[in-house]
């Protein structure tokens, strides 16, 4: 099992006199904890790993440098910079004497930093960053509610409280409402792909249907050619995914 191999490698941080008698039982305990958290689903396993790493690293530090906390009550003469350099020299000497410990510590740090960076880019993309459109804070999505469908869910998984508008409903709303600066309709996946020819090699493109007002409303310009005009709004396909792609 992959997890126990990684954990065994982590245990190499501990001094041998401690690792030899306890490693096997520690690994078993860790697997039990991992199993218990796995039932929680989601990202629970990541938390378990981070806790387990911190747990082992802290004990390793305590066992390997028992005097570290008590050492050097009195500062070295020569101020902060010199004592900092002395610390650096001490650290690099210690690490060189213990290459396995150094490697595993560096790997642990690298894994930790990697995991946090990944988490941040996900959180940043999904939660923090604005949509790549003009004035994204003024964009809203409009749905209709159909309480009569509450007990009869459709085959396509459409929710009664988030039900699509029909094209006619959209026209009525767009013409009759003064509450919005503009309004546009789109429907993804209708058809879901189309073939683009005439620009280099032919290729398949994700496609969808949209009203003429969509791109001007989002403040997006087509990458190729031109967008269509309101009077051409009959049933044109394509373009949306292609032009929005950054």
């Amino acid at each position, binding site marked *: 099992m992959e997890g126990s191999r990684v954990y065994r490698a982590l245990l190499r941080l*501990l001094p041998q006199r*401690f690792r030899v*008698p*306890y490693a096997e*039982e*520690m*690994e*078993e*305990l*860790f697997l*039990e*904890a991992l199993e218990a958290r796995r039932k929680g689903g989601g990202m629970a396993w990541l938390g378990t790993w981070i*806790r*387990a790493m911190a*747990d*082992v690293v*802290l*004990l*390793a530090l*305590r*066992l390997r440098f028992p005097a570290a906390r008590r050492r050097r009550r009195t500062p070295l003469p020569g101020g902060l910079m010199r004592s900092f350099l002395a610390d650096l020299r001490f650290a690099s000497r210690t690490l060189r004497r213990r290459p396995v410990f150094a490697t595993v510590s560096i790997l642990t740090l690298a894994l930790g930093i990697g995991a946090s960076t990944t988490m941040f880019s996900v959180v940043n993309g999904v939660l923090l960053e604005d949509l790549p459109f003009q004035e994204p804070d003024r964009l809203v999505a409009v749905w209709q509610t159909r309480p009569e469908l509450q007990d009869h869910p459709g085959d396509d998984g459409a929710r009664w409280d988030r039900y699509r508008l029909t094209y006619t409903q959209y026209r009525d709303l767009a013409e009759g409402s003064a509450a919005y600066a503009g309004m546009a309709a789109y429907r993804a996946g209708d058809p879901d792909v189309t073939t683009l020819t005439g620009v280099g090699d032919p290729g398949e493109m994700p496609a969808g249907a949209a009203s003429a007002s969509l791109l001007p409303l989002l403040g997006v310009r087509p990458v190729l050619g031109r967008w269509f005009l309101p009077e051409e709004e009959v049933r044109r396909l394509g373009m949306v995914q292609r032009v929005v792609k950054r």
Partner: protein
Amino acid sequence: VPNAAPGRPEPFPPLKTQWFHILTALSREPLHGSGIVRDVLKQTDERLRLWPATLYGSLEELASLGWIEELTEEGDFPEGESRRKRIYRLSAAGRKVLTAEAERINSLARTALARLASESTP
């Protein structure tokens, strides 16, 4: 560190949390590592999980203080437990330390509760 004094005549400062829970877990019967983890989870309503390094680090310290002992005699092992795992039991000294700590907590709690009750009006 008074915490580490084998006799621990003065129950101050308080025992480390994980030490207290481990000693409590062993106060009823000898247990192996994962038995202790499960018992501590039960004691604390699932709030405190002892992670492996914390657990075995503490067990080693508690054993070196003489507050717990590892079972070594064949006859000591509970029915059905394999000898593969280490099993620990509370020593007489450990029992004394745990009793003193429990009484300390109890008397602090009694004092606090009594004052809260007598000054219940804001």
